[in-house]
């Protein structure tokens, strides 16, 4: 056998840190879209994280400067019609928007994942009820629900409250996707073996099956974050968001309210648009990159 296989590069040993680094490095080298996506998202994180050390984010509040000033040394991105320092708005807004997405996406994945796991593994009546609920709710347009909920609780809404409202509907798609993945895994040989080894259902779900679904869970998390951000921006652009917090979506709302297009305040319009484009393209690329890892059909043999 030995002369049949020729080693042309070092075989990574998954047991050691060096091996893990080598293997991950090789994986990333084969997956440029994942790298590009991570770079874009990383750049946004650096902008939001380091920016607040340089710029005072308190100036993102109205009346922090003269209104509608074009970019200058004091205000690098200018100010809006209510006198917000736009560079501070962008730094704070990126952070708040990302946080909304991550919180709502995580809640959606956790709730949806739990429902999907239980529904697929236990089966029977529990499965019927959960699947039925998910199917019915999936047909309801989310924006309708969200508009109604946020219209009711609008006064004093914070961006965290927004995240919770979005999470109310964010679990449907993950529940369904994770259920189907779980159904495949449930009938695998090692699950039967674990049963014969005396493992209980919770142990089988979380210690035997869930680790094998990890790539898939990460990929659905990224999808859920993107969907949550999109839903949040939709609500905010309609004016149903947190009035006192400078999120990116609220910036869009103020742009429309104060007719920034007619007034030609381009420094107000461009930055949130560019940041949103970078954010969504980044999320898309990461997701496309993870897809190969999560979808066994696309997974290439190493």
């Amino acid at each position: 056998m030995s002369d049949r296989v020729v080693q042309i590069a070092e075989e990574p040993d998954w047991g050691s840190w060096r091996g893990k680094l080598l293997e991950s490095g090789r994986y990333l080298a084969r997956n440029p879209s994942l790298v590009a996506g991570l770079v874009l998202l990383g750049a946004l994180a650096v902008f939001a994280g380091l920016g607040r050390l340089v710029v005072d984010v308190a100036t993102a509040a109205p009346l922090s400067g003269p209104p509608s000033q074009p970019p200058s040394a004091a205000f690098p991105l200018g100010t809006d019609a209510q006198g917000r320092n736009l560079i501070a708005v962008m730094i704070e807004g990126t952070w708040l928007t990302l946080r909304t997405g991550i919180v709502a996406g995580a809640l959606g994945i956790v709730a949806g994942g739990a429902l999907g796991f239980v529904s697929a593994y236990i089966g029977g009546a529990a499965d019927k009820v959960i699947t039925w609920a998910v199917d019915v709710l999936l047909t309801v347009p989310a924006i309708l629900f969200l508009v109604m909920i946020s219209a009711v609780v609008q006064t004093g809404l914070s961006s965290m409250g927004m995240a919770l409202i979005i999470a109310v509907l964010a679990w449907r798609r993950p529940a369904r996707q994770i259920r189907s993945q779980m159904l495949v895994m449930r009938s695998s040989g090692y699950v039967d073996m674990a049963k014969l080894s005396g493992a209980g259902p919770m142990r089988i779900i979380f210690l035997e099956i869930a680790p094998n679904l990890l790539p898939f869970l990460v990929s659905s998390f990224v999808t859920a974050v993107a969907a949550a951000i999109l839903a949040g921006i939709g609500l905010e652009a309609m004016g149903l968001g947190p009035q006192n917090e400078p999120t990116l979506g609220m910036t869009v709302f103020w742009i429309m309210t104060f007719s920034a297009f007619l007034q030609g305040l381009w420094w107000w319009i461009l930055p949130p648009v560019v940041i949103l484009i970078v954010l969504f393209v980044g999320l898309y690329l990461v997701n496309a990159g993870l897809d190969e890892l999560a979808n066994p059909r696309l997974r290439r043999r190493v």
Partner: protein
Amino acid sequence: MSLLRVRDLAVDFFTSTKVIHAVRGIGFDIAAGERVGLVGESGSGKTTAALALMRMIRPPGCIVAGTAHLDDTDLLALGPEQVRDARLRLVSYVPQGAMNALNPVLRIGEQILDGVVDHDIALLKGERLALVENVLSSVGLPLGVANLFPHELSGGMKQRACIAIAMVLKPRIIIADEPTSALDVISQRQVMKTLCRVQEEMGCGLIMIGHDMGLMAQVADRIIVMRDGIIVEDAPVRELFQRPRHAYSRMLIDSVPTLGNRAEGAGQAADIATDEKEPLLTFDAVSKTFGSGLFGRTKKTALQPCSFRLASDHAQIIAVVGQSGSGKTTMARMILGLEKPSSGAIRYRGSALADLTGGAAQRYRREVQAIFQDPYGSFNPFYKIDHALAEPLIRFGLASGRKAVHARIEEACAAVGLKASEMLGRFPHELSGGQRQRLMVARALLLRPRLIVADEPVSMVDASLRMTILQNIEALKNDHRISIVYITHDLATAYHVSDYVLVLHEGRIVEAGPPEDVIQAPRHPYTQALVGAIPWPDPQRKWPDLPINMREQWPAPAVLRGRVPGFELKAA
């Protein structure tokens, strides 16, 4: 004058860290009308070599050298358009899994004509019908099949439909890639006979890829034995079976079990009166039906009521033999408690499985273990081997502390001929199928069970390792006094290892008794058909023809005969 001349064919596979020379410079000739068997274990390069002739090697694989002259055309030097033209017209292919090879949304007739249209052969409507009728009748399918979808056909019919597609353009060479490995022996026989007849009519060459030496002995004219990417022996079939020149060919031939030289099990005439003791496992009119429920689809009876009892003081190997769909796996899963019976009760040490609680349930879980068919799926790919072995030990409180656990694992690995130090700390994908299956035997042994259900334990393992694993399983009974329910479709291995055989057909026990009686002198028509269809590894012996109307006789009443101590089957 040979039809196909392959010279110096080499195929490499490239991964990020290695180059694997899958096929290393092989050469062979095939004459017109010749049937050549390409034999070897998984990973020997036999399928790769044959696919290279079709130019179907997928990246990261690549043909790096060689020529394959069919008359004057070099198949390996054709351009992309010429390859398209050559496939099906010069070289065609019968795939392994017919169920996945046919397009589920096209009728069989359309699929037959697909290739014809693709080769720019314009036919009138009448000509097309005649062509479809012609190929269907030559593979022995009724004309009506042309209007059916693949899911409406049985496995054997699908495989014959694939042969019809492969022969429609009258190719010069047909490559058949283990065409019957997914079929039962009776359908296997029909498909192989069909394939041979078609090949004889057209006078083309046939390359049969396979690992079953018995089948090769019945079908092939010449056998090429491959190992590690090279040809180790190339000889006419009789010569190979009488005087194999290479040790590896001899090993392959010897690994196929034959009838008549069964090693006699000891302790036949022991006391039969064991009834007073509490039996280990009892089936009380147990049956299983699938597909009932509120929105009842058509019900499918997987197992008709069956009753037996297995004594606790007499370790026996009970073989349950049957084709796919006979209910044998359902029976295994019910013994393991993975499925619940639809009616009747399964008792373990006198109490029904459904009522077991606490300590008794724990005891049942530990004492009834399994070895599954698929050594790849039985290990969780996320964890190292240690997890599968140590986990049950700790869970059942059989050992505590790293040292004690390790000592037990070492002992069990040694019992199946593996070194624990070489296995522990590795991931499942780093081990071979045979190693994994032996680890499964070791895992079952670790728990000191009383009963092991072995569900086709060797059907996915290479021939050279089958006997070792079966010996491991026999040792469980002889050295450790563990009873074994051996589930298999392979009558030959059942004949060799078991003390008692149950033959299942569509959920019903049709014949039962000691293997010498049931398999050497079957009395029930179904068992007779099964035994008659087994391809024995003896080129001299003719594959007997089966009676045409054999299926009509199968509902005959069950034949029960003979008893062995420790196992009692009650007539249904």
